[in-house]
């Protein structure tokens, strides 16, 4: 038993692999074609060889000119055979070989003989072959036969002649037009397909004669057209007539509408559908006209045939764009098509529902679309995108989810048309829905980062150039645009260059948060100027590029980060000129717990920009103007005490704010309503104006409380302040972490705090002191000599003066070589009111360690120069 079974299995394998054309080779087949020349033709064998030749051609094999000619000549010999089957194959291969004009002559007589044959099959095929390979000159010779063939009683022959006529009309219209009478007669044929072919040809002959087409339609719509295909043609022609006559009918019924409506009751589905579609496409179709068409399409929706469902849903989808109400009746049937196995049908159903549905169904439908977006063809994705676009415009509130959907599919694979549809949609949404602008632009930016379509990149960049500057933070888009400048091909770069808007963006880009981007923007601006593209702004650029930047870059960067885009443009003068302060390390236990939810803002800000941000966020201090300087934190408590407090002095033009950074180091306590009571009795020029208590200070979670003083504007008022920490203390259960409801008011003495002259001076260095000194000039120079009394050494004296003035030592002159007897120290700074100050100190030490000092001050304001002397004199 095993043996036959095995054998059968083998047979099966053979079958699977078996092909009569296995191992077929062109050369061998061409050799075989020599049998066509045998005096005794073997029709069976010849048919096989032709089949092999056709197989090769079908598989994409090509014959050289010589090979084709050889085969063609050999094939012509086969007309000698009277074998019908072989003749059929000969006809097919002649058409496939598409012989040249001089070769055609060889077979013309044979084919003409067949055209007049008594055998219908010969006549029909000879006509088709001859008309396919012939040129105009031959056509006049055979015209008589063709005209006869059109009215041949054999429908196959008539159709062959009519279809050939349709092809010939393209090349020899004047000849074919002479056949109208015969064609017209053929339209009345009882054979379905003859009628179809005749109608197609007759219409093509007369298509430029509107009146004739009108007459044709009028007569045929009254009569009976038997062929469904011909009926479909008639519906198309009728639609054309309706379209062209629409302008002439002001009143009442549309001509031929009744005919179209009647076709909805035809027995052939293709006719019903053709008519329904024609009605939906009528210009200005009314809902009354639409209704019967929608009804038949609705029936098709529940057909078992996918093709019918597809055709119906595709048409209804189009109708829904212009007449959504008319389609709502089909919504229930549409809903069931969402789960259709055919993804195309499901997509069309969903997008139709998107057009006809209401806002509440959007999210559900979107979810369903997402599940099969990857399964469907680009064409359908475009349909989906268009639906989503119109949906978004209809329900702008849904823009977030719809925009997200668009951006997600934008990241996926897809062809150009598809991507273009997405981009176009996003662009339209950005334009029409202001809320969607920012997210939309960012999606586009991300897209061009990795966009394979140059056209889209340039379009998006152009669009960014227009829309980018209008956004709240244009600098966001710069990076993307700039990346393209370097990475993209010339077209894209040119696209970027072409737009004047980029200049705006680049200007803004100068203030970008990323200093690399700034640098590049500057560079690029310069390039633009060099190219002469934006000449009028050249001066600005030059100034920016070559003018000296007298502020530390770090500070500039910080200020720019803090800069909130507003009506006011960024003022470079508002950048703090103080060299970055190294904040004292917070004296906190390592491994401190994170701030609990609802707790005070975490940890004290450690840098000047953070200070600025913090202070400007407090309403009481918001009108104090520009923060001039923030001191380093000064400790007001000893290390390892119950409460750790340090203070930062914030100097404004007319105010001083003390920021007390408090840390509660007792786990069993919760401090509430924490304030610092400041006694300013030793600071006569200061008056307290505001105090901002700290609501709650839990264990090991630093918080800030503030006290603000008013002082005379522009005056370097100094004074001593004594501080008392006042708070309500509540016991905390360490196991639960919960505080008791009742607390006790308590106080804690802090150390004194001083505001000194140096607090009004910013440490701002100059790169070349000598140049700066000389450019400042002697106009506001003040020079005097001071005795500093006995000092440890020269270095100590130098440091004391530097600290007293709070200025930036330049060129390393703060370092005093040991055992020096004299030293020169150079200082620079900016005094409150933004006055640049330069100081030259010459120290000398004599025997008993008495230090003498010559102080030379140059500044932009002689009053300030005097102030510096006063500081030193009183220090």
């Amino acid at each position, binding site marked *: 038993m095993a043996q036959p079974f095995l054998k059968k299995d083998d047979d099966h394998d053979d079958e699977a692999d078996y*092909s*009569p*054309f296995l191992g077929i080779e062109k050369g061998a087949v061409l050799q075989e074609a020599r049998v066509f020349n045998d005096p005794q033709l*073997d*029709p*069976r064998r010849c048919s*096989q060889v*032709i*089949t092999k030749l*056709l*197989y090769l051609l*079908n*598989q*994409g094999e090509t014959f050289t000119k010589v090979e084709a000619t050889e085969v063609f000549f050999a094939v012509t010999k086969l007309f000698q055979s*009277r*074998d*019908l*089957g*072989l*003749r*059929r*194959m000969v*006809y*097919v291969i002649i*058409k496939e070989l598409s012989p040249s004009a001089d070769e055609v002559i060889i077979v013309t007589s044979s084919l003409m003989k067949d055209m007049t044959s008594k055998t219908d*099959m010969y006549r029909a095929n000879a006509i*088709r072959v001859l008309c*396919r390979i012939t040129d105009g000159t031959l056509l006049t010779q055979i015209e008589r036969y063709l005209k006869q063939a059109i009215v041949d009683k054999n429908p*196959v022959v008539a*159709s*062959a002649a009519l*279809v050939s006529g*349709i092809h010939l009309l393209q090349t020899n219209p004047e000849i074919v037009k002479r056949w109208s009478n015969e064609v017209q007669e053929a339209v009345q044929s009882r054979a379905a*397909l003859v009628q179809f*072919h005749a109608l*197609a040809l007759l*219409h*093509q002959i007369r*298509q430029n004669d509107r009146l004739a087409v009108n007459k044709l339609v009028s007569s045929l719509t009254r009569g009976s057209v038997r062929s469904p*295909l011909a009926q*479909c*043609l008639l519906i*198309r*022609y009728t*639609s*054309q007539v309706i379209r062209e006559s629409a302008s002439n009918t002001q009143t009442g019924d549309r001509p031929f509408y009744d005919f179209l409506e009647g076709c909805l009751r035809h027995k052939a589905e*293709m006719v019903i*559908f*053709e008519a329904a579609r024609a009605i939906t496409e009528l210009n200005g179709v009314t809902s009354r006209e639409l209704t019967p068409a929608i009804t038949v399409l609705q029936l098709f929706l529940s057909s078992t*045939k*996918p*093709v*019918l469902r*597809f*055709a119906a849903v*595709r048409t209804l989808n189009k109708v829904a764009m212009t007449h959504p109400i008319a389609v709502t009746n089909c919504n229930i049937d549409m809903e069931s098509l969402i789960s259709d*196995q*055919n993804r195309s049908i499901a997509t069309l159903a969903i997008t139709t529902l998107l057009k006809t549905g209401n806002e509440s169904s959007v999210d559900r439908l979107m979810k369903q679309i997402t599940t099969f977006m990857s399964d469907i*063809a680009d*064409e359908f994705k475009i349909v989906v995108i268009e639906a989503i676009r119109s949906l978004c415009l209809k329900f702008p509130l849904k823009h977030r989810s719809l925009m997200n959907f668009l951006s997600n599919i934008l990241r996926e694979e897809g062809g150009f048309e598809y991507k273009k549809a997405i981009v176009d949609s996003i662009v339209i949404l950005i334009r029409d829905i202001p809320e969607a602008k920012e997210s939309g632009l960012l999606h586009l930016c991300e897209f061009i980062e990795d966009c394979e379509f140059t056209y889209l990149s340039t379009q998006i960049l152009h669009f960014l150039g227009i829309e980018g500057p209008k956004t709240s933070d244009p600098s966001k888009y710069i990076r993307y645009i700039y990346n393209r400048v370097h990475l993209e091909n010339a077209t894209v770069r040119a696209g970027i260059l072409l737009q004047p808007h980029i200049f705006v963006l680049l200007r803004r880009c100068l203030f970008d948060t990323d200093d690399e981007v700034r640098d590049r923007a500057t560079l690029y601006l310069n390039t633009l100027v060099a190219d002469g593209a934006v000449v009028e702004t050249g001066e600005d650029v030059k100034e920016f590029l070559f003018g000296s930047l007298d502020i530390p870059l770090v500070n500039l960067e910080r200020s720019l980060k803090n800069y909130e885009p507003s009506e006011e443009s960024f003022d470079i003068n508002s950048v703090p000129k103080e060299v970055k302060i190294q904040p004292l390390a917070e004296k906190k236990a390592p491994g401190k717990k994170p701030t609990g939810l609802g707790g005070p803002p975490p940890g004290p800000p450690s840098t000047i920009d953070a200070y600025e941000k913090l202070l400007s966020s407090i309403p009481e201090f918001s009108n104090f103007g520009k923060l001039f300087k923030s001191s380093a934190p000064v400790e007001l408590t000893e290390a390892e005490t119950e409460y750790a407090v340090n203070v930062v002095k914030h100097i404004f033009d007319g105010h001083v704010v003390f920021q007390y950074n408090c840390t509660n180091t007792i786990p069993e306590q919760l401090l509430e309503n924490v304030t610092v009571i400041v006694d300013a009795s030793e600071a006569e020029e200061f008056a307290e104006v505001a105090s901002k208590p700290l609501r709650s200070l839990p264990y090991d979670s630093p918080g800030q409380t503030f006290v603000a003083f008013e002082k005379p504007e522009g005056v370097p008022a100094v004074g001593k302040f004594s501080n008392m920490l006042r708070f309500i203390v509540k016991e905390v259960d360490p196991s639960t972490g919960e505080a008791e409801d009742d607390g006790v008011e308590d106080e804690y003495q802090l150390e004194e705090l001083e505001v000194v002259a140096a607090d009004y001076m910013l440490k701002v260095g100059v790169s070349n002191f000598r140049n700066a000194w000389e450019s400042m000039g002697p106009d506001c120079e003040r020079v005097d000599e001071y005795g500093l009394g006995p000092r440890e050494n020269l270095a100590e004296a130098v440091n004391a003066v530097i600290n007293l003035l709070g200025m930036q030592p330049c060129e390393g002159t703060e370092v005093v070589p040991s055992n020096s007897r004299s030293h020169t120290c150079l200082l620079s700074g900016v005094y409150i009111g933004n006055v640049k100050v330069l100081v030259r100190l010459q120290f000398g030490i004599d025997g008993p360690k008495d230090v003498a000092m010559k102080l030379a001050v140059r500044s932009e304001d002689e009053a300030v120069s005097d102030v510096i002397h006063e500081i030193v004199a009183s220090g």
Partner: protein
Amino acid sequence: MESCPSIKNILLLDSEGNRVAVKYYSDEWPNNSAKEAFEKSLFTKTQKTNARTEAEIAMFESHIIVYKFVQDLHFFVTGAENENELILVTALQGFFDAVGLLLRGTVDKKEALENLDLILLCLDEIVDGGIILETDANVIAGKAASHSIDAAAPLSEQTISQALATAREHLARSLLK
């Protein structure tokens, strides 16, 4: 849309997407590699669908394609994007049924290749230069199989003549009912 319905191509592929017989009527595909690329992506796109009981439909590269599968044969008819889908499916059904008649119901790749001449004649009878010639499967098969009428023809291979005889018989039966 005033033009005559037209067919862009008719494809008969095997279960791996290889050609059994194809016929292009549109010059949208300028060369063989363009055609093969189209067939390949079309095949991949439709491969997993069930088009065995009813003809299926797909939209693909701005074409409407209707298709039907039987055994290891995949039948496709391609038309323009705005073509009446039901006309295309009529042509597909005509081709599909005619091949069924010509292959005596044993419709698979092997049979199709062994009777490739009939398949090619069948294609030749359905569409001429993109214009539908005939959609009735019986008429198509009848015309394609008519070439054995010349009884005098000496047949070297008995199987082929038998096949054709059966096809004729089948045809006669379906014409009678």
